[in-house]
């Protein structure tokens, strides 16, 4: 009955076909990630090349007018780049202070119970589809600004900035919060043991130690803002002009992404205008690549500084940069105040500038003349108030949409086809279309992504190939969703001849969520301690036996979480399916993979922007979409928390 009774000398290499097959399968999965980004680059460049050649690279990049439909078409990117910059900077002015304050509140001030509510709430905020934000911006924010400032139209840089600020908040909060929470406990205890107050410890030990993580958070937030399409189209007015004067935040602008979203649907395929749009996409892709590479570099430095390893010395070594950053830290608050004050003065809001000045003086006086405990109280209340404001904004958005929309979500609304351009009837085909799109994209992305992650974590040591795959994945992750849409249009719809179809939409969405699946699966696999793998190998198990029986079972909850998050993302995105899969009105359901479909986010977008007098159905559609996404994200959070508690190593 005992095993291994054969001659002990027989331990020569055995052929193991299963091992080789599994290895090959995972390798193919991993390589698909590279092929994905490779194809995106090739096809975008291929379609952009005529524009660069005909218009000329320099005139294209430096031209001061974008007017492709006039008699003499003008293709100059400057107004679009300026628009993107203005909106992004505006968003960061709002999002950075609030994001960091919220992160400090959640990591340091909140009670454990409060943190358990706030952290998932922030993740939910991240899950709200951008078209819902855009809808809220269009109906509430723009109107509000219009009335408040008594201007003819609230669609402006200001509206875009505020909305994008809200949208990039979750990214900034959650990444900064991670950075602050991962500052080692002994640093905090060391400072407190010296008699520093909690606030002194936060401001002088914890935040400086977490600075690179916070920087990465801000960069990622910028990436989010630059790549956003739908919300921007809905609130910035979309006039391709350079605001005059440049700081006129009430002027409408148009961003790079907005241009793609608006013009791509109406352009003649193969015209110069068409190629110019691909040129815009290439520029957009380059900008986001740079932003993401910057974030990656900062993150990597964070990692090496935490493990104590820093190989490079000299001016650009991490120590030097960290030292310099902490060197300018004391000048940061007055500097920022001065800049913001100047900015407010320039746009003519002298009251605002005066307010800033008074506020700053108060802060200085308090710092100078109050005892530390009072200073701490003041700062803590400030941070708490900022957290409160963010929470109120979230609650207000949700309340507004649910209170206005819920009464119109009836059984008929959910089960009928739309009538009268969506003003009447229901959204049944859109629900089914979204369902098909999501299921299809997940069925493609899940096996590929999990396979790639298994290959990366279990089958290779770090080498050039894995680094290449990881970088490709990270870049794919940061690519704006509209760029996926353009790629899907040129490659799947036109080149492969799928037409505007369910299949094209599924593949585009799959490509978009693939990085999320790979990342989360990798995290889950890595959280299984190596000692378990060693234990299994030491018993003579093969690699695949070890992976299947020891590593995969405890990783399942993490993998499921990743899958659910991807489902949420795929369900809420508009830009990737806009040109690849959806139509606005279609009473019947799709018969095959090559039929176009309706989808909830796109339906909401068109209802909100192109159909006057459909307010009730807009709100009701938003409610359905929001409900769907909240349920999906909530499910993911519940699963994760449940297993976090259960698994102990």
């Amino acid at each position: 009955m005992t095993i291994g009774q054969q001659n002990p000398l027989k331990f020569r290499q055995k052929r193991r076909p299963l091992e080789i097959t599994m290895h090959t399968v995972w390798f193919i999965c991993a390589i698909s990630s590279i092929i994905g980004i490779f194809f995106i680059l090739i096809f975008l460049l291929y379609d952009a090349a005529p524009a660069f050649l005909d218009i000329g690279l320099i005139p294209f990049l430096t031209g001061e007018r974008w007017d492709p439909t006039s008699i003499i078409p003008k293709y100059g990117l400057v107004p679009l780049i300026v628009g993107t910059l203005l909106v992004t900077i505006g968003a960061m002015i709002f999002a950075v202070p609030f994001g960091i304050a919220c992160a400090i509140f959640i990591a340091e001030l909140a009670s454990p119970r409060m943190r358990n509510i706030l952290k998932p709430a922030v993740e939910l905020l991240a899950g709200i589809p951008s078209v819902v934000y855009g809808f809220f911006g269009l109906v509430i924010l723009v109107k509000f600004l219009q009335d408040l400032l008594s201007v003819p139209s609230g669609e402006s840089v200001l509206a875009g900035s505020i909305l994008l600020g809200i949208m990039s908040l979750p990214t900034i909060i959650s990444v900064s919060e991670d950075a602050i929470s991962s500052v080692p406990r002994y640093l905090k205890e060391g400072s407190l043991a010296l008699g520093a107050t909690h606030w002194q410890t936060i401001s002088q030990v914890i935040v400086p130690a977490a600075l690179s993580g916070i920087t990465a958070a801000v960069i990622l937030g910028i990436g989010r803002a630059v790549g956003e399409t739908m919300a921007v189209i809905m609130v910035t007015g979309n006039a391709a002009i350079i605001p005059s004067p440049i700081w006129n935040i009430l002027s409408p602008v148009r961003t790079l992404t907005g241009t793609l979203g608006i013009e791509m649907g109406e352009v003649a395929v193969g015209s110069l205008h068409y190629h110019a749009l691909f040129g815009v996409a290439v520029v957009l892709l380059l900008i986001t690549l740079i932003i993401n590479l910057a974030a990656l570099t900062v993150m990597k430095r964070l990692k090496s500084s935490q493990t104590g390893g820093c190989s490079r010395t000299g001016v650009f070594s991490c120590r030097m940069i960290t030292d310099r950053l902490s060197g300018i830290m004391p000048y940061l608050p007055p500097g920022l105040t001065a800049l913001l004050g100047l900015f407010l003065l320039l746009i003519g809001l002298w009251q605002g500038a005066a307010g800033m000045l008074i506020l700053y003086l108060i802060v200085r006086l308090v710092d100078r003349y109050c005892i530390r405990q009072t200073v701490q109280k003041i700062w803590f209340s400030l941070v708490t108030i900022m957290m409160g404001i963010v929470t109120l904004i979230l609650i207000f958005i949700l309340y507004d949409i649910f209170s206005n929309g819920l009464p119109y979500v009836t059984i008929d609304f959910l089960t009928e086809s739309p009538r009268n351009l969506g003003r009447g009837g229901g959204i049944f085909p859109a629900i089914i279309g979204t369902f098909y799109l999501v299921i299809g994209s997940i069925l493609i992305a899940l096996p590929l992504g999990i396979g790639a992650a298994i290959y990366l974590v279990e089958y290779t040591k770090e080498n050039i190939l894995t680094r290449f795959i990881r970088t490709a994945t990270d870049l794919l992750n940061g690519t704006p969703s509209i760029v996926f849409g353009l790629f899907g249009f040129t490659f799947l719809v036109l080149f492969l001849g799928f037409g505007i179809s369910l299949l094209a939409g599924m593949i585009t969405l799959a490509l978009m969520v693939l990085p999320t699946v790979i990342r989360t699966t990798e995290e889950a696999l890595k959280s299984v301690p190596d000692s378990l793998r060693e234990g299994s190998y030491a018993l003579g198990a093969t690699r695949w036996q070890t992976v299947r029986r020891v590593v995969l079972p405890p990783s399942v909850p993490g993998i499921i979480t990743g899958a659910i998050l991807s489902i949420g993302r795929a369900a809420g995105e508009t830009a990737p399916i806009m040109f690849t899969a959806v139509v606005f009105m279609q009473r019947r359901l799709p018969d095959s993979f090559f039929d176009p479909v309706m989808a909830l986010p796109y339906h909401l977008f068109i209802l909100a922007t192109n159909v006057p007098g459909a307010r009730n159905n807009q709100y009701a559609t938003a409610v359905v979409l929001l409900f769907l996404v909240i349920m999906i994200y909530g499910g993911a959070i519940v699963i994760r928390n449940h297993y976090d508690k259960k698994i102990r190593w």
Partner: protein
Amino acid sequence: MNEEIIIDVQGLNLWYGENHALHNVTLPVANRKVTALIGPSGCGKSTLIRCFNRMNDLVLGCRVTGDILYHGQNINGPDADPVELRRKIGMVFQKPNPFPKSIYENIAYGPRVHGIKNKRDLDEIVESCLHKAALWEEVKDRLHDSAMSLSGGQQQRLCIARTLAVNPEIILMDEPCSALDPIATSKIEDLIEELKKEYCVIIVTHSMSQASRVSDYTAFMYLGDLIEFGETRQIFENPHKELTENYITGRFG
């Protein structure tokens, strides 16, 4: 040494990247005896023991030259299969590392991956291995509880039972008691005494008293060199090298 030599290490060198961790180590290991590897931290004893079942294959940037003859066959040779090797040479790690499964499943894991499916055979293996690891009486009523619910010492004996379940010839133990309290340690030491009747045991230990209690042969290592090897009594009572004597008498380490 008159005993049968089961493992013969000849001129073994090992590098972690640039770091030359083992220098030309030569060491015979006797069957059905306990061989202890002692020495100060970082001397390479854990590295050496991980060479015997090629666990170092899993370490990034690790390079090995030299021969380790197991029954006369070089396990570092091009046609040696680490998977087959590890089923003949089992290993118990420093920290107990039971799988997050039930006690029963932990022990059945090894036989299962080697193709035993029959429930009755598995039951029999589980029971006999738990007996051998002196754990049966403590866990027989809760074989299907999670292995994580056991105490540290019980977990380590479970890991030993798990190793026995694939019926190895040699058991490698890498500081098996370093995470355990004195009572659990003495239980493991008693167990080693039992095990050497059937198995060859190689143990890495920080504790010189443990080495002198459980082992028949002792090898003293220092900074990647094997300084002295001999019968345990001779090493502890009459070391030939000054370095060994200094370490044994506690002058450094």
